[in-house]
């Protein structure tokens, strides 16, 4: 799985992209966030409180209950502020 991070999420983690072998029991965006939260302090800072976090699966906005699979591109970022 390809993981992408943007804006303040990228900044807090220290990188913008990584590859992950998705554990078989992680099947939703929310479960993926919970899995990432357990990886260390900087991940915990981003993935513990999901309220300020948004996600996209394969470049489409997704909810935390939406499914993810190992071939997906999943992105996490704060609410958008363009325009």
């Amino acid at each position: 799985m390809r993981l992408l991070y943007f804006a303040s999420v990228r900044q807090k983690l220290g990188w913008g992209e990584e590859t992950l072998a998705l554990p078989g029991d992680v099947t939703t965006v929310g479960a993926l966030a919970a899995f990432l939260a357990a990886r260390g302090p900087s991940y915990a800072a981003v993935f513990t409180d999901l309220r300020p976090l948004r996600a996209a699966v394969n470049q489409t906005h997704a909810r935390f209950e939406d499914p993810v699979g190992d071939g997906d591109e999943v992105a996490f970022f704060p609410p958008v502020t363009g325009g």
Partner: protein
Amino acid sequence: MDILIRIQTEPFDAAAVLERFAAGAVVSFIGRVRAEPGLQALRLEHYPGMTEAEIERAVAEAGQRWPLTGAAILHRVGELKPGEPIVLVAAAAEHRHEAFAACEFLIDHLKTKAPFWKEERLVSGSHWVDAKASDDDAAARWG
């Protein structure tokens, strides 16, 4: 529908975009970096690939809602100074009401759905701009 979507670092040519559409009514919106005390620059980051896909979805939805003959969204990324244009949205239709509605829909959609993030560079340091509830309210009007 004639569609123009561009994500670019360089300034855009507003006149060329407006001349592109020969429709009866062309409504455009230009958003600029506001001059605010202490603001040195704005840096815009985006999600390449998803940005274009999300804007294409917005334009397709606008085209279903209103009989548009054209639409353009040009959005800059990278570092921009106060006063510089950030975004140009244009909607062309035979009649003005449709063009006004579609242009406002597109910018409301862009502000709440397109994956762009603004970082303000102030004299005192940099910080990410928070999303505005008023933008969510504006987008929610369209149902």
